[in-house]
């Protein structure tokens, strides 16, 4: 546990000192959302109807942006093999790295989302649920994405390949994230959706570090 905290601290310190992807990710999020009114027209009711979907799809794409670099730097400078040789489960260290990654990407997205929801005329009833779905969903996206990042380490064109691998796996999170917000906006109960999102988060917490660690060990062989 203390080792996991060590790695979270180191990754956060690195993000702070060498400039992290936070700004780029949030900028992409904002820019892409802003593109939609140009694409589908600025009528308030169309934007409102599609706001949950647009926000979630864009957040999903934005959170994928910095994923391929999650393990890349450590892989290239030899830190990854030393991490694999630490006297603790590699899965724990992976969780630490993902936690740090989420703090620098998922959390800023979560903060930016309500602002963009205003731009898309989202119904006020949806805001709280929006935040909740992002709180439950973005860590799941980071976890699944980390597994993808570990799989494409050392591959040719890893960035694009990562998207192909990870986007199909994101679909359930997307469906229930948007479903919860739409339900809330229509005045229907959204607990079921949120519970399912929570369940997916727990399942990802349990399973993806294991898969990611296996993939990392493959990369180091």
């Amino acid at each position, binding site marked *: 546990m203390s*080792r996991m905290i*060590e790695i979270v601290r180191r990754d956060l310190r690195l993000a702070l000192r060498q400039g992290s992807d936070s700004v780029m990710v949030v900028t992409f999020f904002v820019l892409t959302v802003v593109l939609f009114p140009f694409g589908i027209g600025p009528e308030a009711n169309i934007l409102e109807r599609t706001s949950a979907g647009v926000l979630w799809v864009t957040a999903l794409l934005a959170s994928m942006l910095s994923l391929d670099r999650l393990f890349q730097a450590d892989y290239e400078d030899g830190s990854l093999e030393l*991490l694999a*040789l*630490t*006297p603790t489960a590699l899965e724990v260290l992976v969780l630490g790295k993902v936690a740090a990654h989420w703090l620098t990407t998922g959390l800023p997205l979560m903060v930016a989302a309500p602002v963009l929801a205003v731009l898309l005329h989202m119904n006020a009833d949806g805001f709280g649920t929006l935040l909740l779905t992002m709180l439950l969903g973005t860590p799941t996206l980071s976890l699944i994405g980390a597994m993808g990042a570990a799989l494409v380490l050392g591959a040719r064109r890893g960035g694009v390949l990562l998207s192909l691998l990870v986007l199909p796996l994101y679909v359930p999170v997307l469906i229930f994230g948007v479903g919860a917000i739409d339900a809330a906006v229509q005045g229907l109960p959204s607990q079921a959706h949120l519970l399912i999102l929570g369940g997916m988060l727990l399942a990802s917490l349990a399973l993806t570090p294991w898969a990611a660690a296996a993939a990392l060990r493959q990369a*180091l062989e």
Partner: protein
Amino acid sequence: MTDDIPTATFSAENLACVRGERVVFAQMDFRLSSGEAVLLLGPNGSGKSSLLRLLAGLLKPASGHLLWDGTPVLDDREAHAARIHYVGHHDAIKPVLSVLENLRFWARLHDPKSGDATAQAALETMGLWRLAEVPGKLLSAGQKRRLNLARLLAAPAPVWLLDEPTVALDRASVKVLEGVMAEHRAAGGMVVLSTHADVDLPGAREMHLDDYTPAPMDVSEVWI
């Protein structure tokens, strides 16, 4: 003094290593006891780095098992990780962290209770203490290598697996490393070292890895 030092044996029989689809070495027996050292020699491609990575646990052998005092190493990977230090080709130094921060991170990962005093002593031995606050990006290649080697001293581990550690080191630093290795062995530690340069390892067994390279496959034997 010998009664205080616990003796342990690191061994393997019939080891084979396959990288990609090539058999790098096969039918290798390996044995190392406390205080001993092995010098790995052989041409490029003979498997020196592969053997070191295999001993560290980064690579799985295609045949044979690694044993520590008779118990298979794979039964408890974390215990094995705790007892080795691996120094590879890369120096694992973050450019934006200072020398001390880099060392402290690795020391604490290996042993969470490791204190600043050990880190300081390690840096002093390696001649880096006065550079403690310097960020990694300003270090020369030799200084980076010395920082990497300082890990050996910042947290204790009985087995040192060193892959060409003297690259980029000047004569004085090589002497320091030799002294450090001698002290380590005197205290019961083991050293496995691969090198192309001259490193003084008194009493080390030499292992020529091309002795274990399998003979080239006779093409006529292959049928399709």
